């Protein structure tokens, strides 16, 4: 598996660290316990195409949103993750 970082180009997997599924969103501070439990512990654990957060620690140190197939390891897109970096890129 090699990941094409939008900032650094194609790099080997060892430069990247995995956080996980990009879908769970932190619930609002006043959301109930169930919402927090769902966010912290429950996963869709998709067998197929999944959006994920990866960190390019061995390169530009950007957070990336990688769309990858968990059945084949095929990567279909890599974008800057939502946040300050992505806003910078969009300018």
């Amino acid at each position, binding site marked *: *598996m090699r990941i094409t970082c939008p900032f650094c180009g194609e790099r*080997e*997997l*060892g430069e990247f*660290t*995995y956080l*996980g*599924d990009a879908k769970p969103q932190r619930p609002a501070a006043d959301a109930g*316990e169930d919402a927090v*439990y769902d966010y*912290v*512990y*429950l*996963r*869709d*654990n*998709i*067998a197929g195409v*999944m959006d*994920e957060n990866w960190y390019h620690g061995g390169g530009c140190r950007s957070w990336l949103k990688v769309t*990858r197939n*968990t*059945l*084949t*390891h095929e990567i279909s897109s890599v974008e800057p993750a939502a946040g300050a970096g992505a806003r910078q890129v969009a300018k």
Partner: protein
Amino acid sequence: MKYSIFSLARAALSGHKTWQPTWRDAAPKDRYDVVIIGGGGHGLATAWFLASEFGIRNVAVLEKGWIGSGNAGRNTTIIRSNYGLPGNTGFYELSMKLWERMEQDLNYNAMVSQRGVINLYHSDAQRDAYARRGNTMRINGIDAELLDLAAVKKMMPFLNFDNARFPVQGGLLQRRGGTARHDAVVWGYAHAASALGVDIIQNCEVTGFVRDANGKVTGVETSRGKIGAGKVGMAVAGSSSRVAAMAGLRLPIESHVLQAFVSEAIKPLIPNVMTFGAGHFYVSQSDKGGLVFGGDIDGYNSYAQRGNLPVMEDVCEGGMALIPMIGRVRLLRQWGGIMDMSMDGSPIIDKSPVDGLYLNAGWCYGGFKATPGSGFVFAHLIARDQSHKEAALFRLDRFQRGAMIDEKGQGAQPNLH
């Protein structure tokens, strides 16, 4: 067929042409009292304990491929009970005790070899942590010995004792730990369960659950037709989320790939199972002579039964740091298996929120050693609708209650357990 010295002699005198298949490859019936999904070690052990201990013999084990084709045939065959947290300590010792009598119970040679498991330590802090774990084990009646450097040198003179960065200081040894032949464990349970009337049904993939008006599971849809069931147990670690999703459940589990490795055969070298405490590397030597070793999971969600090169490099570097001489040995085979990584690194053996469906999941990469214990407590749960006392903490709702069993203290980040 009962195996003994006499059956061996009889078969030998007839040129080994009279051996019969050791278990029946059954076709599905319309209905069973209990259907177990998953023909790996855990599923087959559950079926055998249901039949032998709990008197439920109208049981089917459904396997989508061939039995033992998943993680039961992909692990590094280590058995041990050196856990430090309540919930784990007693359960794994129950499993260890069942390993010690398994071959007599099943009338099958599973090559259980209690050659010892040693965890090496490389710092004062790690020594203290291991001493604490060893004390926890001994308080619970489990054997543990803290070895100093001289004792480790005597036992394993071939280690690198000149490593300035990660000096070997000693190790925590469990002499009753060791290895077992993983395929023979699968075949042994299949052999004994089949003899008690359990139907082992291969090439039978579950595609859905049959539910009644109240939502209770009353059977399964499979690639070989509908099969009715009084109760359904799932033991499909690696695919737990996919099977549970068919019943509308989301689990606190991610599927990750773990690689394992075997070298070419060499003369006897590694006398036990050993782990490197300063990296993640563990190794034993098979009876054929190959070094069987592994390390970390790859770290990303995967259902592909293969891994990538960075972890392979990391594992081999760990091996080289500990045993430099193995740099001359060639790697023979490498493969991957899919781990049910739970959110606290411990398993789930519990009733599911769906009536009639029972969960056996979340084994992370420690499921093999648990095979007999898991089968026993899961059969207990299914037969009596009540957790066995040694599995009473492996509850599905423990994450909601804040009652995690987090042996590594990593929190809800499954790829770090």
